[in-house]
């Protein structure tokens, strides 16, 4: 008797869960497929709305949308920001990465030579309410303003001693570091390619 352990019929037990998982997965894929375009459009509208706050002197209506191939070989959408007279004022670069809870999506403003960060805006986040979600506040975002891009940003817990240091939010070090890492990754991935492919664009 003990020699032949009773076989548990796993499929008999779990078939409903498996079937529902497939069904729900399909339904969610359908919803995502249907709505992702609309959601992306909402984010683009918001991007245009905040461009003047990311690059001073920008005229959002004169923005040029560019697709740049990053160092990682993937194509990335960036915005070349122009002034009212058509002069190149700077750049707005969308970037994303893992936060404490979920993906964080940001917009980073740069000057025309991509040497200084001119602004930061959080497009999407689901960080802890009352702690990590302060990354959306101007107080935290302004800590990135005026930072040089020649060396990676470092998050510190005390008053910044160097140009590349960003003071973390109290109680939200991981969210703060996530945002800084997203900025560093975007600079490393896109700075050189953008300068190469800028301003005299469609060459090919």
């Amino acid at each position, binding site marked *: 008797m003990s020699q032949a352990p009773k076989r548990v019929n796993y499929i008999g037990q779990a078939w*409903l869960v498996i079937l*529902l998982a497939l069904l729900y997965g399909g339904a969610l894929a359908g*919803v995502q497929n249907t*709505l992702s375009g609309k*959601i992306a459009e909402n984010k683009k509208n918001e991007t245009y709305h905040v461009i003047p706050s990311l690059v001073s002197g920008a005229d959002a209506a004169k923005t040029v949308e560019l697709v740049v191939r990053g160092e990682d070989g993937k194509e990335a959408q960036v915005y070349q920001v122009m002034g009212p007279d058509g002069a190149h004022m700077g750049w707005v670069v969308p970037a994303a990465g893992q936060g404490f*809870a979920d993906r964080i999506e940001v917009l980073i403003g740069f000057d025309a030579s991509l040497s200084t960060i001119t602004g930061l805006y959080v497009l999407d986040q689901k960080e802890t309410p009352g702690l990590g*979600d302060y990354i959306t506040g101007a107080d935290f975002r302004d800590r990135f303003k005026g930072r040089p891009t020649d060396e990676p940003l470092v998050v510190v817990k005390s008053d910044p001693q160097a140009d590349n240091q960003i003071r973390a939010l109290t109680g939200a070090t991981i969210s703060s570091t996530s945002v800084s890492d997203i900025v560093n990754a975007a600079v490393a991935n896109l700075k050189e390619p953008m300068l190469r492919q800028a301003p005299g664009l469609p060459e090919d």
Partner: protein
Amino acid sequence: MATDEPTALERFINGILPENPVYRQLLGMCPTLAVTNGMKPAMTMAAATAFVLISANIMISLIRGLLKPHLRILVFTLTIATFVTIADRFLAAYVYEMSKQLGPYVPLIIVNCLIISRCEICASKQSLKVAAADGVGMSLGFALALASIATVREILGSGTWMGLRVMPAAWPGWGIMVLPPGAFLTLGLLLAIAEWATARRAAKGAAGRKAAAHHHGGS
């Protein structure tokens, strides 16, 4: 045995006041406290919760004969999570500003105990009609509770209701009512009023019966 279970009408009515999710069952406290600083976010949350609750109740009732006792909670969670994700994407697509304002509280509907408790108590045991009536009743009860708290907080905190000015322009706006402490204060006071009214009605009913039995009026 089946006759012991409440009917569709009883389920519907119970959800609104006698078994109100917030004032009677004290469920769904996270959204109740977090998104009631204004009527608009509160009603968006109530609508999203209603969609998830009614859909989950219907789905679970349809498959109730196939549920294995030890896997039922897994099936409930899977079903609720799916409908929450659908609601979240719809809000992001069609009411983008509100979706941003509610932030993580929409995905957090998944852990609203109100929904899983209705799946367990009603939908997994009763017919489609009763489960749907239960979902609608409970959703109305939840919306009513959120509306009552949001009304107090928005009027006292911002001087507006649904974004429209209702207090005189000189009203200073009690900042605390918009902030988290205002949520706790309002919920506590409204709960106390609800308890007091219930106790008073019960006492009146008992006194009335006593009076009728002993003196036929007077006292």
